[in-house]
């Protein structure tokens, strides 16, 4: 009997070790606040901070060739409203022939929360976030987590101890392009061409499309220099069967991210 038991446990051992390899072991998630209290009717930023084990990554809103972006469902006190995720620009994670868009090491997915006008001073408000996410190295593990944060209601709020992670994320959030810069997009053959007139002329560019299946994620993005402008060449996805009227995404120029939402002209076809 004992022999049988040991025999069967030996057999189960590899399955048991597999079963305990959970997403939790490779990513620590925490719900954090930029400030130490809730002020009625004044929006505050909360965020999910992912601390990823070396070699592991999670995904941007457009995950690229594989993977899946994290999703947050909020369970908020009455009258509170949550905005959408402020996605920092991602890294291009390459395992040829595939390329994913995601985050390694640490990322903060911040969200604006608007509390109602009427809140009892000194009350404690409980905010719950349900997260579904995928972490991958050479293998992928889906994870689910319920995170809770309780903050007091006060007339004035100060910085929380987590303020630094919000501050260090700020430069990675896409912002509007400076007035005076020009960007245009054209569809030409099997390419989209983004032409930029910036001061000084940009030389270090990378484009991350918001929509999957518009550009070939794995194809290199090449730059050509024109008089007074530069042009980024993006190979179209072979899944793109119809013309698109708009291209949306994030243009990263020398480490600063800018929002792009422009019409695609067919004129230069």
């Amino acid at each position, binding site marked *: 009997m004992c022999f049988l038991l040991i025999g069967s446990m030996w057999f189960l051992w590899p399955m048991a070790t597999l079963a305990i390899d959970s997403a939790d072991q490779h990513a620590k998630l925490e719900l954090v606040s930029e400030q130490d209290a809730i002020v009625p009717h004044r929006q505050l930023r909360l965020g999910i901070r992912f601390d990823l084990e070396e070699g592991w990554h999670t995904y941007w809103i457009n995950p690229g060739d594989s993977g899946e972006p994290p999703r947050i469902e909020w369970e908020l006190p009455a009258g509170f409203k949550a905005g959408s995720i402020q996605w920092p620009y991602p890294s291009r994670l390459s395992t040829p022939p595939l390329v*994913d868009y995601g985050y390694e090491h640490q990322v903060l997915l911040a969200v604006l929360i608007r509390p109602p006008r009427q809140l009892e001073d000194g009350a404690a408000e409980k905010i719950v976030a349900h997260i579904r996410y995928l972490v991958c190295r050479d293998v992928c593990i889906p994870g689910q987590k319920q995170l809770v944060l309780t903050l007091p209601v006060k007339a004035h709020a100060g910085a929380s101890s987590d303020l630094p992670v919000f501050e260090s994320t700020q430069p990675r959030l896409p912002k509007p392009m400076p007035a005076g810069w020009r960007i245009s997009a054209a569809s030409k053959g099997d390419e989209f061409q983004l032409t930029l007139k910036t001061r000084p002329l940009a030389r270090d560019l990378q484009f991350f499309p918001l929509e999957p299946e518009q550009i070939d994620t794995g194809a290199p993005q090449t730059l050509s220099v024109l008089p007074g402008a530069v042009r980024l060449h993006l190979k179209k996805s072979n899944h793109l069967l119809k013309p698109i009227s708009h291209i949306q995404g994030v243009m990263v120029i020398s480490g600063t991210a800018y929002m792009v939402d422009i019409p695609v002209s067919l004129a230069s076809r």
Partner: protein
Amino acid sequence: MKRNLWFSLAVSVLLACFAQAQRVGEPVPDFQATDSNGHIQKLSQYRGKFVVLEWHNNGCPYTRKHYESGNMQRLQKEWRDRGVIWFTVISSAPGLQGYVTAPEENEYLKRMNAVPTAALLDPQGDLGRLYAAKTTPHMFIIDPKGVLIYDGAIDSKATTDQSDIATATNYVSQALEEAMGGRPVSTPTSRPYGCSVKYAH
């Protein structure tokens, strides 16, 4: 058996000449690969029939979603009963997740009650690269004339949750139903979702 394998590897290297990904609406080139029973399977053998290609990795949570729920097996049975050829393709390289030997794959098919026409072993990733297979699962449909009519996800809900299967639109069934009815495929491409195909580095 071993000789056979090396022969098929040598042949499949020839496929790498077609480095360009296949495009929906265009004819696909012929391919051949060795299945888990040691038989050579050629696409051209099946001209006149619909052929489904299903990229597979038995350890990937997205693949497991569709196998542990029985969804993939149901699709295989339903469409094979209606005359469709169904190839499960495994492009995981040796040492990487999802790589299986022929006996391991046969044991898996039996244990899971999976009923593809054949499971094609592609450890060099040549067939995967020919089709630009990105994820597991990643589905392709070739029509009786040898034209690619679908390239994309198995369904419309890109998650690992089995509970999403019932409410998702299954793009493979939709495309086969439409094409068999002589209608155009309403969703001919979609973003395939899943784990990356574990190609040899």
